[in-house]
């Protein structure tokens, strides 16, 4: 498939056109040069699909979702990717959405993502997901890259911090990490830090890759060869840094504002989920916890591993209620160590409940992102899942390293 071809994405939904989000779905697809298509199926299949699928439902549109999924798997509707979506808060649709996604994943090699929308869902929210879906379909050759070559730079403009990594001949030779304030200025600072550490001149750089929320702005400003969403880049960076590029892996990235859980096979993302219901499940909650405890965020993890989360009742499902629990527990005499441990546990518990149910967890489980450096977080995740959690070196630079690695594909071009 050439880069110019439109990626055909099957929209398998139970009535997004009634929810006021159809134009946003179309807009997100258009921005990544994809086309939403509606898999054709025989109407008579709606009478039999429930028993074929093994799932009986009351809504006819959910039968339609199952029939369309079957058409995709059987190849009667040739597509490059599938976007499975239904209304947020609909239990019946959530069951079907989950099973349809699993069915497509198990019975085909077609990348699939699911998402639940409200009428407030915007194209910007859908863009990263749609971009990742089309990248997997369109740029498999790029994702197959296992070694960095030449002299390349990766810039990751995250919601909280901006990271830069300079790589030469498969080694990280410079890095920078600053809080995100102004997107371009922060990237400039991080880039300069990395240049200084690497001891190289900017004009010697052969290719630049940008990722994160500010990727488009940075891509334009720094004239980047690669501008790529963080799901693809981070999963690539994670398996590269953890040295697990072959076989299965699961990547969890706890970001400053949202989280990603990605199921990876041979370095290529398969199923993935992004975001939680509330920032309570993100690094932002840990930042607020550190602030309330009067410690630096870098110290929170050390405190947390000394505490016992069981002693404090905390549920950061909502960041406001989470902070209320935190304040209440401190007021009742809980010690900082236990509160810090409970905050870490609460964050990973939400990732487990909200995101890991939607991807197939296969070892190794690689934890990346700034929150992975807070020792209490990998410990809480390992305790919860009863498996060893791998935190690779430079895990906080995951996006920047992934971008530098993938950008090296453009050095040879």
């Amino acid at each position, binding site marked *: 498939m050439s880069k110019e071809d439109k990626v055909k994405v099957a929209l398998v939904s139970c009535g997004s056109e009634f929810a006021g989000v159809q134009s946003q779905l179309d807009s997100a697809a258009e921005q990544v040069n994809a086309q939403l298509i509606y898999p054709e199926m025989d109407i008579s299949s*709606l009478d039999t699909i429930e028993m074929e699928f093994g799932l009986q439902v009351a809504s006819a549109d959910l039968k339609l979702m199952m029939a369309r999924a079957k058409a995709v798997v059987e190849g009667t509707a040739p597509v490059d990717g599938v976007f499975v979506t239904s209304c947020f808060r609909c239990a019946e649709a959530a069951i079907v959405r989950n099973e349809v996604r699993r069915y497509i994943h198990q019975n085909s090699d077609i990348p699939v993502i699911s998402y639940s929308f409200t009428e407030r869902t915007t194209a910007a929210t859908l863009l990263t997901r749609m971009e990742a879906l089309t990248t997997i379909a369109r740029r498999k050759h790029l994702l197959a890259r296992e070694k960095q070559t030449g002299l390349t730079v990766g810039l990751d403009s995250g919601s909280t911090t901006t990271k830069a990594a300079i790589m030469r001949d498969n080694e990280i030779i410079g890095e920078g990490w600053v809080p995100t304030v102004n997107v371009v200025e922060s990237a400039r600072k991080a880039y300069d830090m990395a240049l200084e550490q690497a001891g190289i001149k900017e004009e010697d750089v052969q290719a630049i890759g940008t990722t994160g929320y500010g990727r488009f702005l940075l891509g334009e400003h720094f004239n980047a060869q690669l501008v790529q969403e963080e799901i693809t880049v981070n999963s690539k960076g994670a398996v590269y840094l953890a040295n697990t590029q072959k076989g299965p892996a699961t990547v969890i990235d706890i970001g400053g504002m949202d989280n990603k859980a990605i199921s990876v096979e041979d370095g290529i993302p398969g199923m993935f989920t992004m975001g939680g219901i509330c920032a309570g499940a993100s690094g932002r909650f840990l930042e607020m916890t550190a602030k309330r405890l009067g410690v630096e965020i870098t110290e929170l993890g050390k405190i947390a591993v000394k505490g016992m989360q069981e002693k404090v009742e905390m549920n950061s499902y909502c960041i406001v209620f989470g902070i209320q629990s935190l304040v209440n527990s401190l007021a009742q005499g809980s010690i900082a160590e236990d509160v810090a441990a409970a905050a870490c546990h609460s964050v990973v518990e939400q990732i487990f409940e909200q995101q890991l149910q939607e991807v197939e967890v296969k070892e190794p489980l690689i934890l990346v992102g700034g929150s992975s450096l807070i020792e209490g977080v990998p410990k809480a995740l390992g305790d919860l899942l009863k498996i060893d959690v791998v935190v690779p070196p430079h895990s906080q630079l995951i996006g920047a390293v992934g971008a530098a690695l993938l950008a090296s594909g453009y050095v040879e071009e």
Partner: protein
Amino acid sequence: MTKVFIYPTNSLILSDLIERFGHTPLAMMGEVHDKITTIGIDSPPLNITPEDPKHGLKYAAVEVPAGVRGRMSLLGPLIDKAEAAIIVDDAAISFGCMGCARTNELTKFLTRDKDIPVLELTYPYSDAEGKEFVYKISEFLESLPKEDRS
């Protein structure tokens, strides 16, 4: 002439029967037609925008999924206008397809809850049941006032 709401709301057969008896069918097709011919809105295929699920809040609370409220923004005003209603339960998809079960439950409830004549039938699956089905509908439609109430 009586305004008769139908369920399934897009049943061409029910809509046609009502017209034949001199009444006005209140059906989804008319609402969708109005939507898609509204000049100035470009949100295909149905021209339902994020504002429509908000209009649906009149019929269902905010915790009800957006798709239900979006559908109710079309169906709710029809029920409000209805002077009579025919509900056909368990219909074949070819008779009229209602996609969302939660919308269907709410639509039928709001119809039954309204103080209007409602004929509720089960979809026929044999010739004899079919004849009885049409007979009951015609009897119901004949019983409705023919004069213009507006």
